[in-house]
């Protein structure tokens, strides 16, 4: 079985205390669309954090599906924007089209 580097969960960021500075010293956090969070696998601190934030564990494919759905919707929203917001033009700041995200384990 391939060794996993990361694990994924879905958890709602409620603000202060969701990730503390002590958490951040111990763990590397990455967030993705759809409230998907990536933390190290096979790590007791990470397991405790997921439990502490009432996170719902997701497999790689489950997490990827959630992210894909969010990105697809965001891309559709971007495509529907007026042209001046898509391309940099005088006086208007462009909004970047969301790109596909590939999660790794």
């Amino acid at each position, binding site marked *: 079985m391939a060794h996993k580097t990361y694990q994924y969960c879905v958890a709602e960021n*409620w*603000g202060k205390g969701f990730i503390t*500075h002590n958490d*951040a010293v111990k763990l590397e*956090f990455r967030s993705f669309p759809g409230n998907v969070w990536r933390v190290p696998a096979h790590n007791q601190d990470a397991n405790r954090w997921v439990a502490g934030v009432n996170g719902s564990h997701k497999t790689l494919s489950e997490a990827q599906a959630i992210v894909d759905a969010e990105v697809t919707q965001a891309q559709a929203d971007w495509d529907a924007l007026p042209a001046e*917001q898509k391309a940099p033009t005088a006086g208007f700041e462009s909004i*970047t089209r969301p790109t596909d995200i590939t999660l790794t384990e």
Partner: protein
Amino acid sequence: MAEYREIQGAAVQSLASNTGTIEGQIWYDTANNAFKLQSISTIGTFATAPSLPVARTGGPMFSVGSTQDAVLSAGANPAGPPPDYTTRTDVYDGTSWTAGNPITTAARNSVASGGASTAAAKMVGGFSGTTGGDNTVEDYDGTCFTAAPVMTKGTEGAAGFGTQTAMVVSAGGPISPAPQQTDEWNGVSWSTVNPTGRTAQTGASSGTLTAGLWSGGFKNYPGTIVITDSSSYDGTSWTANNAMNTAKGSQSPTTTGTPAASAVFGGNLRPGITNQTELYDGTSWSNTTTLPAARENGGGAGTQAACLISGGSAPSPTNTVLEWTGPGVAVTKTITTT
């Protein structure tokens, strides 16, 4: 087995707070019934903070405050171009955000005085629909915004630092006819002083009138050329610094940072946005702990030691807020048995 008293020469104290504790000290926290260790952070870290009431972006967003616990966020755009720019303001007290009184002119990409206090800030220019930027200026007294003497030119995405009574605004838009113009506010009026020596818009700026720092930005805003340039202002003239590691614009600055200790978070690489953090120590830029996710145009308020990054685009507008605690900062850790 040796006891703590034998090693340290004193027993573990019982204290209600960390007041007066020193690096390396262990004490019993009577308020929380836990053993604590006073330590110094070795790396910078991001923690989550209460989200803004609504997602906002555009700028970087107007944001002032010298700590993580007292921040004013104003303006920007929640959805789209004019007339969608908002007059909304929100004030953070370290615990929660409260809606504040509105700004007079809805705009984004305004420049803020770095001011150490949210009770006396200055908001200059921005884009409210006038190509090239506005020349409007508003003062904040801790409660309300009021109109102040206007700038000599319209400006958007300028470099700005200082206080409500002593501030520098430089470069920014429009790219022509005076892209390097620098103006000083002395508390009474604006005057034009030595130009920047370079042109850019929507970079990061911080500091005071006599010790300011400006980095990155778009050379042909809102085009595709982002730059690594960094410059300092000493109250009289601009000096080129060593370059940042990565060219970027729309990064979030530590508005109260100094030319000897500043940081920038995220930004736009054209193409794509980044989660990079770069620290400046007065001589060179270094990469450090990255944001949990890429972000641009967030509001940055605070110092290299303690900063609040609010809102921005990731790449869609976000209301999430992060606390940054830099390396070398005193931190209190809870000692557990695991």
